[in-house]
């Protein structure tokens, strides 16, 4: 009985399949922006949106002679929702997917964009799998990878002559992977590990862990935590003067946005930076001016990276002169952005990862118009020290 029903269904399906074929008139270039606009990463997503908007306005919201239509979808800081919204955007026939923040969301979205053969621009998620084990033809990352961040942190520890590092690591796969890789790198640099703790995401009290770290004899503290936990751990660390006892550093551990949340306790925290508004490239100066005019604040690293990736992509689409997604993808894979906000960025054809310089900064008190906590660039690493050649 059931077999027969499904047989009938199959026949119906086959018949209906014959009468399809949507011939699409291209009246606009549709971008599907999937970002967390609420939830723990809401502030990050909102900044990325702002940066992206500048990239669009810079070209009068047009590409290939047609207006650009961006459909923003709020992923609510949930992979589930991000996937749901992406599926819907793809079903609406968008030409490009832009996003996400969390690597898990980005990886899940990549499965969909690959399936639908839609270009996918990633400007923040750092997991190595995005341009590594799980890379796809259609997804490109114009921002930093975890490997690149780790290389910077290892190099920073060496240059700062740190002897022993204590690790407080968020207990999730990316965190654990990153810490494992970093430990291996530190070992080659003769830097010892004084101890490590894995703590659940959403931990509300770090004081015991910080106390353990400060008693461990380490002179460096790697804080590998995410989202609101960065604020929690730094706030509670500031109360006990942790940064006077050891160098505190991490990936995206501090910037102007987080500085505002942590308060004066931020001063002296060291962190990798994906982008900084003080970069002196002409494109960046133009971008910062436009951003400040529109939003009355300096662009965050999330905004800067979003702007940079999206404007690069749209410029590349323009150069192909046509509406063939495959050609866009080929062109982008072979492109070099000579005047990105951070100097030269080169898309690596082998893994769709942009090779680029890396920045490291320390938080200082802002003066004048600058935010109360401002990052000062302390180290700039060349692309050649951060990237292993493509195999």
């Amino acid at each position, binding site marked *: 009985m059931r077999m027969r029903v499904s047989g009938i269904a199959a026949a119906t399906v086959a018949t209906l399949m014959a009468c399809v074929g949507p011939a699409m008139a291209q009246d606009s270039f549709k971008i599907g922006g999937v970002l967390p606009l609420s939830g723990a990463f809401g502030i990050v997503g909102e900044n990325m949106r702002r940066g992206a908007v500048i990239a669009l306005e810079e070209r009068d919201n047009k590409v290939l002679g047609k207006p650009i239509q961006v459909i923003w979808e709020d992923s609510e800081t949930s992979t589930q929702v991000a996937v749901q919204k992406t599926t819907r955007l793809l079903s609406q026939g968008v030409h490009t997917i832009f996003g996400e923040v969390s690597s898990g969301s980005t990886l899940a979205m990549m499965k969909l964009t690959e399936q639908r053969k839609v270009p996918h621009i990633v400007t923040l998620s750092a997991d190595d799998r995005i341009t590594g084990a799980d890379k796809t033809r259609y997804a490109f990352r114009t921002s930093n990878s975890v490997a690149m961040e780790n290389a910077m942190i290892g190099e920073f520890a060496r240059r700062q002559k740190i002897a022993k590092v204590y690790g407080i690591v968020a207990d999730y796969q990316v965190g654990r992977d990153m810490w494992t890789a970093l430990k291996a790198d530190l070992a080659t640099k003769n830097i010892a590990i004084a101890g490590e703790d894995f703590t659940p995401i959403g931990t509300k*009290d770090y*004081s015991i*862990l910080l106390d353990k770290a400060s008693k461990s004899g380490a002179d460096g503290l790697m804080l590998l935590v995410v989202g609101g936990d960065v604020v929690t751990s730094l706030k509670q660390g500031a*109360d*006990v*003067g942790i940064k006077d006892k050891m160098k505190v550093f991490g990936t995206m551990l501090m910037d102007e946005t987080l500085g505002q949340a*942590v*308060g004066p306790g931020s001063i002296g925290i060291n962190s990798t930076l994906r982008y900084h508004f003080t970069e002196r490239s002409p494109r960046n100066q133009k971008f910062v001016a436009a951003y400040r005019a529109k939003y009355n604040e300096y662009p965050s690293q999330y905004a800067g990276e979003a702007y940079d990736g999206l404007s690069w992509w749209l410029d590349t689409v323009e150069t192909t002169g046509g509406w063939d997604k495959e050609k866009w993808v080929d062109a982008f894979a072979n492109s070099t952005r000579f005047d990105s906000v951070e100097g030269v960025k080169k898309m690596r054809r082998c893994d769709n990862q942009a090779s680029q310089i890396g920045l490291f900064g320390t938080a200082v008190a802002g003066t004048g118009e600058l935010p109360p906590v401002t990052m000062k660039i302390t180290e700039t690493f060349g692309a050649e020290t951060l990237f292993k050649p493509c195999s």
Partner: protein
Amino acid sequence: MSTLIIGLSISMLLFLLAAGLTLIFGMLGVINFAHGALYMLGAYLAFQAHATFGSFWPALIVSPLCLAAAGLAIERLTLRPLYPRTHEFQLLATFGLILVIEEVVRVVWGLDYRHLTPPPGLTGSVALFGSDIARYRLFVIGFGAAVIAALFFGIERTKLGLVLRAASVNPTMAATLGIDVNLVRSLVFALGAGLAGIGGTIAGPLLPIQLSMGFTIILDCFIVVVIGGLGNIKGAVFGALLIGMTRAFGQLYAPEWIDIATYVVLLAVLLVRPQGLFAAKERLA
């Protein structure tokens, strides 16, 4: 020893939140899912008060008062008509409240993290038992203990407390004795909301102030009140201590197992004494 002190400070913070939840359940028979949202609102109001008056102390008064007032309004408008109905309607209403409160906060304060500094004199740390302990934490312990004492005194020793207990044990009987049960319910909800405001303010200097802060804390509160026995202040104190200490000592030995350990403790309690450890015939105190 320093772990004990830190554990105590965690416990007190948990207690401040759980107390409101448990009071509201004891009197109204409602599990207030929106308690976390109220706590978040409390933290934002504290931030605003701090920004306006330039000090922490006014925030500690203004935020709970505003929350209590909001609590009065919420109880009148959304919960009062629902008491005669079954539980799911009250849960639903408080679920709706979460969404509304989060929207209000989003519109007023946006998505940015906000920050609250401890009052002068309570910044920095003191060396105790070989560890540096933030002064503010010691304040949290003292303040929490004061609130516990005040609640016990209020409920056990005052006339108002007697009325509360009577009304919670048997509302119909209390009504025939001339107690305005509706008024009592409103007041208790306002008190619970006010406690959420105190919790939000106290948490401000320790935790990030952001929209999702209530979402994560509410489960902790549930755990505390369920362990202690719903509607029971003594139980909430005990539950908060148990969970606070589990957290503190867990961090010392096996941080990655803390959350699971917490739930195991909880389920063990539920299996042995489903009504909680301190469930008594009287639902309050």
